[in-house]
């Protein structure tokens, strides 16, 4: 299977060429176009219970679509908001994705939902996050550009900007500075991450967009 991310970074989409018997699993409603030779099969995402949990707590669809073909075909997958898409290959390792980030994966990848904890809720990152593991490529999207960091010591990320991280990353919540600067600098609470491991961040945040829009409504 060949996959290419096009129109990076603002309006990225995945152009997939499927060979005979090849499959790609995508978030429901991610398909923008496809050849008539491609078959689409809708399945519960990891079973009925997991699908419902993914919908409620992971901001993902209850269903995933499995695209396959017996001959050859191509399809384009996209995300509902403007921003970049990143592809990484899992080799038996695990990655946590923030709610709404998952876009597509190869059949060897397992999708699960994990408890993120109160600290992530306070950091406005959600109580749950998706856990992807196994082998194969996975594509995830973000609002704005995606940039990655390989971290070992402590690294600070503002809330709403973390997209994906490895389980080896320790996450703590802290103030951006002192009490005064934390409240009046506009940064407030931040996420403090400690490696080793890799993190993926988005250059814009939905919370920031909502606050900006709100400030122009009055």
């Amino acid at each position: 299977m060949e996959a290419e991310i096009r129109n990076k970074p603002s309006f990225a989409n995945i152009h997939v060429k499927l060979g005979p018997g090849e499959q790609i699993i995508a978030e429901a409603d991610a398909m923008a176009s496809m050849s008539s030779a491609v078959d689409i099969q809708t399945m519960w995402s990891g079973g009925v219970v997991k699908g419902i949990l993914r919908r409620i707590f992971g901001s993902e669809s209850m269903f995933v679509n499995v695209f396959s073909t017996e001959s050859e075909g191509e399809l384009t997958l996209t995300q509902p908001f403007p921003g970049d898409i990143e592809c990484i290959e899992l080799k038996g390792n695990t990655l946590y994705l923030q709610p709404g980030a998952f876009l597509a994966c190869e059949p060897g990848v397992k999708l699960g939902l994990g408890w993120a904890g109160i600290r992530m809720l306070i950091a406005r990152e959600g109580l749950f996050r998706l856990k992807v593991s196994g082998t194969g490529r996975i594509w995830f999207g973000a609002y704005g550009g995606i940039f990655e960091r390989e971290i070992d010591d402590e690294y600070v990320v503002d809330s709403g900007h973390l997209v994906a991280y490895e389980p080896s990353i320790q996450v703590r919540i802290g103030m951006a500075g002192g009490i005064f600067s934390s409240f009046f600098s506009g940064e407030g609470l931040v996420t403090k991450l400690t490696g080793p491991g890799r993190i993926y961040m988005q250059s814009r945040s939905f919370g920031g967009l909502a606050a900006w829009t709100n400030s122009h409504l009055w």
Partner: protein
Amino acid sequence: MMDEHTFTGGVFSDTIDGGRAGAEIELSPMGIRALTLDGDRFEIPFRECQLEIGGFSGRMVFCRNQDRSITIYCEDRTFPSALSSASAGILDQQLGESLKQRRSESRRGRLIVASVLVVIMLLLVGGYFGVQIGARAAVRAVPVSVDREIGTMAFESMDLEGPEVTDPKVVQAIQTMVDRLAPYAALDGLDFDVHVIDSPMVNAFALPGGTIVVFTGLIAESDEPEQVAGVLAHEMAHATLRHGLHRVGQSLGLAAGLHLLLGDTRGVVSAGAQLFQLATINSYSRDQENEADAEGVRMLHEANIDPMAMPRFFEHLRDKEGDLPGVVSWISTHPQHEDRIAAIKSQVASLPKRQYKPIEVDWAEVQKRVNHEQLERRDEDADGS
């Protein structure tokens, strides 16, 4: 854990394409081995192993070689004890220190989370009382003329479900009670304007600004004029304590308070009038009802009218609740009356003893005229249908 010495984990190394891979971790007598799915093997002897504990779960054990080019990690709960056992105690000191540090960080994290939750709770509670205090301050700053405008506008557009009674004997009886109570109102500038409506509803209410509406059902049901005066004192207290304006403020939110403070009263007046017009029978919060009871008792006492008539009327309504006509009676908009009766009696008991002066009206005649008017109306309705 796959068996006693084999675990699922992973490895970080620059020699792997992408820098990381899941791996099967094996503990041998010599060291820790990691075997990736691609068949790459990594090994760190126990004596070179630098241990750390962390990761998202806080229990991931990282074993690094001396130049930190290889990191083998495992999250299995039994891994630390298996590592201690396999290394024959070589790594026990590092494990102990890492676990101690981790527990300390975990305690600090829990303390921060608890502190944040307490601060959020305090902000919520503080915000609630702040809004309440702010709303009261806003209402105090608003001139009484705004109350009158809301009340007048609401009254003009209200459907009172009956014609206004013009019989001077009936209207004058109610006016006499209001005239005795009015001098003791806690707020100046109110104009108590009495309207008696022919309706079997056992009810009365006062609109913001002092417009008072009494239904003939209340007159017919009261054994003595002091009982009606008790209800009137309670309803007049809602007007003097400006509960109507508070209610408008609560319904319209903080924006109403800001508009009022900035002197822009038009929008609030029309919205308030609409609110009172929709709720023909006013319902206030439990605290406001209790306040109106207490203020009503004070007014009755000052006006030299027996305040015990108020709880007597409540008891009378309670006893006859099922038999009363009218779908909406005063009792249905004034619940929890057992507590209220007890509170009023306790307040009356604390007042200085006084010889109260009866209300000088021919109550039997007033009730007769009211009943006659109701009968006439029912006959008219029957003829009309």
